[in-house]
């Protein structure tokens, strides 16, 4: 317990540096050491946020972006998860499909953009497709590896104790691969936002990316920075939600029940 009693080992200390940076940034901007056309001050960014919130634009665009992200995530996640399950549990499917998936996986999914634009134009489908493809692979790999790495001794125990194949799956294989699947989900959430940012920047008539591109055309630096902050907040928020799930679902794991 000695480690806990150090003066820097508490909840507040890690926040000191970010706060200092923001204050410094404000001061540098306020005294025109950095001009607002180069980088607006934190206060100006917050004011831009309040302005757009009052007109309702902020909520509208954030909602649309979040929707795209989640729809793409659910589609890509489900496809990845189902392939991971099938390949992890049925050797025939694994032998048939896994090598192909591993090969396709090496293509950076953002390299597909020209193709995607040709196929779908720049409408909703293109963005959702790009998110789905990006999300699919990390979920696939982690589900597949998670299942493959479930302790064989537990599976043997389960069959000695007369569990049916279905019960073996629901009681041992699926929960045993859950930690890996959750790692995949957290990683995929990051990929989800990156794919969306890129997709929305290329072409959109709504969403956070649209806010950014149109603000850039009018040189509204405060809004440009605001959109960056919005993406950061959304990314952090989804990671936080995933962490909460992790804690709840893995509370049996000594690494997570730190009370």
């Amino acid at each position, binding site marked *: 317990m000695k480690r806990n009693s150090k003066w820097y080992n508490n909840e507040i200390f890690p926040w000191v540096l970010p706060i200092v940076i923001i204050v410094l940034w404000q001061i540098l901007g306020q005294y025109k050491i950095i001009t607002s056309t180069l980088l607006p001050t934190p206060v100006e960014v917050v004011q831009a946020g309040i302005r757009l919130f009052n007109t309702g634009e902020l909520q509208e665009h954030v909602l649309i972006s979040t929707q795209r992200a989640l729809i793409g995530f659910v589609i890509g996640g489900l496809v990845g998860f189902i392939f991971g399950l099938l390949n992890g549990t049925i050797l025939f499917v694994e032998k048939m499909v896994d090598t192909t998936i591993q090969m396709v996986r090496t293509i950076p999914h953002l390299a597909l953009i020209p193709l995607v634009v040709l196929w779908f134009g720049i409408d909703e489908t293109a963005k959702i497709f790009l998110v789905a493809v990006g999300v699919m692979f990390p979920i696939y790999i982690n589900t597949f590896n998670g299942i493959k790495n479930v302790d064989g*001794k*537990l599976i*043997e*125990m*389960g*069959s*000695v*104790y*007369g*569990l049916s194949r279905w019960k073996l799956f629901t*009681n*041992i294989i699926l*929960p*045993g691969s*859950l930690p890996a699947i959750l790692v995949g989900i957290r990683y995929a959430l990051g990929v989800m936002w990156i794919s969306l940012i890129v997709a929305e920047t290329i072409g959109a008539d709504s969403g956070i990316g649209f806010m950014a591109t149109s603000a850039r055309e009018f040189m509204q630096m405060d809004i440009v920075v605001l959109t960056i902050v919005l993406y950061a907040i959304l990314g952090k928020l989804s990671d936080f939600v995933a962490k909460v799930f992790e804690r709840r679902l*893995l509370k*049996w*794991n*000594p690494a997570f*029940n730190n009370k």
Partner: protein
Amino acid sequence: MFNIELKDVGKSYGDNEVLRDIDFSVDKGSFTAIVGKSGCGKSTLLRVIAKLEETSKGTLTFSGEGSKDPKIRIMFQDDRLIPWKNILSNISIGAVNKAAAKESLQEVGLIDKEKDWPDQLSGGQKQRIALARALASNPDILLFDEPLGALDALTRMEMQNLIEELWQQQQFTSLLVTHDVTEAVTLANRVIVIDKGTIQLDEKIDLPRPRERDEKFTYYEKKILNQILGG
């Protein structure tokens, strides 16, 4: 209750003949210990009996009332508790019903741990839970594969007493694999020594229970130990 009968059983992995000419039968409700050096094929023999491995030669038969298959359970050297299930759910894996699960948890003296996670228990407690899980299903045959090997001496003696007591109550047919001769003589009616893949000694232990570490006990211990070391 079931008898187990092995006729001329052999088991090979490729060219490696692990077991050969294994020929013995076990009476229902009896307690038999199988001892031998590490790597002599003890675990393989248990796995064959549990039908986790096929025999390469010979036959394995079970005979009992009716023609149904016996319910066989194994207690492994490692507890093999499911980390994401609490203690009661772990026992319920093998249990006929919830009441049976609680009853066997009571029998091993850990009823107050029913809501704990396996990782919160000590090694000895985990093996008690593994024993409770095996018993909760009312097995016809219980196979022990060095289940006490990793425990400290005191905990091991406690577990031996518990196993003996529960076996006397419930009379499941028991087969205990161990490399600990004292443990074999403490628990079994009969000790079989395996070396080089086959049976070298088959000794009835004719001692009253609970067993005292007296002269007769030592006689059996010595005889078995000499066979293992000399053979």
